[in-house]
């Protein structure tokens, strides 16, 4: 990371000042849990083999000894995880355990948070993304992201979907191109249609592609955001609680969609909904308070017969 400027330092020290009570509290909770469990149990809390998941396919995303700090706050601790390609991986765990943080490590969105500091390695397609000279544009084209709150641009539906490809120069609709006869509005329309169909939204909006996206319902907006992410043709799709703001019908539409997508894409999804994780994912990673990855295995195994007592407690709703 670049050298922080003096102003950065002031803001950072300010933010740690204001965060002080919270961080002390976190520290207190941590030490409490350390004292409340016996030495034997805390040995048992984390075991290499619980997260050592073996699978047949190839690895698409691999994190190795990943640590993330927000100032003094150690949000992710020594995460190592291999995510198989063309499958759905669910990340579950109590609030504040670092699921979103981990997700943001995969497309380096943590770079945008000034306080965040990432150590360790993440490989996408076998290439280390935390090295100098990584092309963030290319990385984020390959690793798309859908946020917890639907966040379409205040533009037309069509412009929302074609935004990424257009800015990357994949379709040319600029004035000069149009004047030179190279305009690709047909190609644009085709791409928009394809992405919207993939996101199971096309039928609902096909007759009003020119309307503003803010006029859509929440569920439609979220599927539009998925379409927008798909339009740049990513390999990996990161989803941070994509259904948390949606009603059951919209949720089930999105779940079906995710299952479909997993045939072509590697989907990593954060969810607070155990049933949802059990329904749609192939493998599940459980993060627990403190920023540890505690267990990672086939979804069936995690939900039926977890190794860790704490994971079992969490899944059966006894804590978290």
């Amino acid at each position, binding site marked *: 990371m670049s050298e922080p400027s003096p102003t950065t330092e002031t803001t950072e020290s300010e933010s740690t000042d204001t965060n002080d009570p919270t961080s002390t509290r976190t520290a207190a909770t941590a030490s409490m849990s350390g004292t409340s469990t016996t030495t034997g149990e805390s040995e048992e809390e984390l075991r290499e083999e619980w997260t050592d998941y073996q699978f047949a396919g190839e690895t698409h995303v691999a994190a190795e000894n990943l640590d993330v700090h927000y100032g003094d706050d150690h949000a992710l601790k020594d995460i190592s995880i291999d995510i198989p390609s063309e499958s759905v991986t669910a990340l579950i765990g109590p609030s504040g355990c670092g699921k979103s943080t981990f997700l943001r490590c995969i497309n380096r969105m943590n770079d945008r948070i000034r306080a965040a500091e990432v150590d360790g390695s993440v490989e996408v397609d076998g290439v280390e993304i935390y090295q100098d000279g990584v092309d963030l544009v290319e990385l984020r084209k390959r690793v798309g992201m859908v946020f917890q709150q639907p966040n379409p*641009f205040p533009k037309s539906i069509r412009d929302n979907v074609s935004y990424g490809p257009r800015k990357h120069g994949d379709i040319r609709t600029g004035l000069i191109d149009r004047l030179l006869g190279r305009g690709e509005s047909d190609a644009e329309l085709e791409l928009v249609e394809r992405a919207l169909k993939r996101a199971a939204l096309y039928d609902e909006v096909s007759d009003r592609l020119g309307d503003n996206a803010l006029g859509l319902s929440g569920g439609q907006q979220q599927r539009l955001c998925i379409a927008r992410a798909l339009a740049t043709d990513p390999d990996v799709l990161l989803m941070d609680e994509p259904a948390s703001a949606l009603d059951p019908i919209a949720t089930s539409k999105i779940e079906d969609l995710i299952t479909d997508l997993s045939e072509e894409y590697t989907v990593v999804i954060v969810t607070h909904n155990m049933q949802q994780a059990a329904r749609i994912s192939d493998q599940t990673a459980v993060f627990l308070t403190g920023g540890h990855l505690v267990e990672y295995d086939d979804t069936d195994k995690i939900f039926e017969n977890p190794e860790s007592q704490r994971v079992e407690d969490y899944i059966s709703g006894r804590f978290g």
Partner: protein
Amino acid sequence: MSTITSRNSLVNGGTNRYEFVAGATIALSALLFALGMTALFEFVTLTDPIAGVPTVSVLGGLLVLIGIGVIGLGVSSSLELIETTPDRSAGLVAGVVFGGLWFGIGGIVAAGILGLGGAGWILPALLLGGGAFAVTTFTREDIGSTVPAGVLAILAGGVFLTGVLGPGWSYSPGSFPSDNAVTFFPSVIVPGSVLFCSLLVGWASAKAYAGFGARGRHLGAHVLIYLNALGIIAVLFGLVGFVVIKGAPTAFTEVAIGPGVGPEVSVLGLSFSLPVSWPFLMNGASVFVRVDGILPAVVGTVWLVVGAVLFAVPIAVGAAVFLAEYADEGRFTSVVEVATNGLWSTPSIVFGLFGASFLIPRFGGSKSLIAGMLTLGFMLLPLVLITSREAMLAVPDEYRDASAALGVSKWQTIRSVVLPAALPGVVTGIILGVGRIAGETAPILVTMAGGTLPAGGETVDVIGGFEFIATPPFVTNEALLQASSALPYQLYALITAGLGGPQFEDAPFTALEFAWANAFVLLTVVLSFYAIGITTRYYFRRKLNR
């Protein structure tokens, strides 16, 4: 408890007449308020008769009427002839207001009418003020809020009716130095007290209408707020209407529409006559034209604003992008914020001095259009900067995150997401800024203005002034280096030259009429800039929302 009594009042037989009187008193108060407004702006003259009766007497009679009405309401409520829910007291605020009012009246009457010299006025003033305070505060609410207001209205009305305040009457408070004493004439005092009394009585009778208590206070406050808003709107429309009435007839002198009546113009080598002839707007001022006009000033103002906007807006928006998107929030940005706020409140003549001492020597050493444009542009900069930055900071971070997650670079994100979302805010800043600079006189006076009343031939021709040459800088524009007039400056020049002057001997109007027409055109030009700005903003907003 109040619900029970108000249920009682629904079935009470006497209520209908009471409510009718209360409603009529409110309506009369509103009517009086409107009459007072019109009298204040001299749309009606006090001595003119309304239906055969002098206006003063009509006003006085109405005041007495509403005074009696409101006292009647209060008394019948306090005699429990009808069911009301008055509080124990009208409250301290009302007490202080009425006490202060009556204190002043006592003083004025004692000193001005009874002629009690020295400190002799203090005793009656104290007596009246204290009495009003006591009545308001220590009696029940129905008496306390109606009687002081009603008596005031009756007193004022009686004074008007008896003719004590005849047209020749005037009042000079003795405490001012004798020479330039402040003198009040009936034309101000009468409408002023009518407005005031009608407000008070309207408030009191609205309270009575709702049966006093909480509901009464609610309705009373409503009537006060509505009458006040009415007054403000009336003042605004009155001002605009005043300028229009005074200026429009002159501005439209000898307008003619028909093929070929207008002056000859040539566009792209084709020359033809305009189908409209509007001498006031199409002529300059000179002995060769019969109807003198203000074409040079109109053109000067338009170019001035266009030039200032073209100069300031790109710079300001660019700086705002840097401050909102790139600079870290911290000491630097807060210093910039304080500096821009300070610049915006800097008096315009200071900008004028800057233009005169810094810009003029760099643009040919004499007053010029471009010096004026740049000076006004510098004035416009801070406001556009402030509002644009605010607008960009208000763009949700989710848009930026979404764009970044698609792999779009920061600059492209700013260009295609942040700026479009911030445009309505930017345009608002431009509208406000243009409203200020278009009417500025002082900076123009020292940086740009030419002759007092330029002839038509002195109209700046910015577009035609461009000349292309073979050597760098390849394009020159003589027109930008000329002095020019502008509407506010010309108005200023007219006023200083003396409005009674014989400047337009052959014209069908006087100098004063010319000045009003000039003001009318200035107002129209500024309002047109507003209209353009508001339409643009509406367009961008619509694009964002639908």
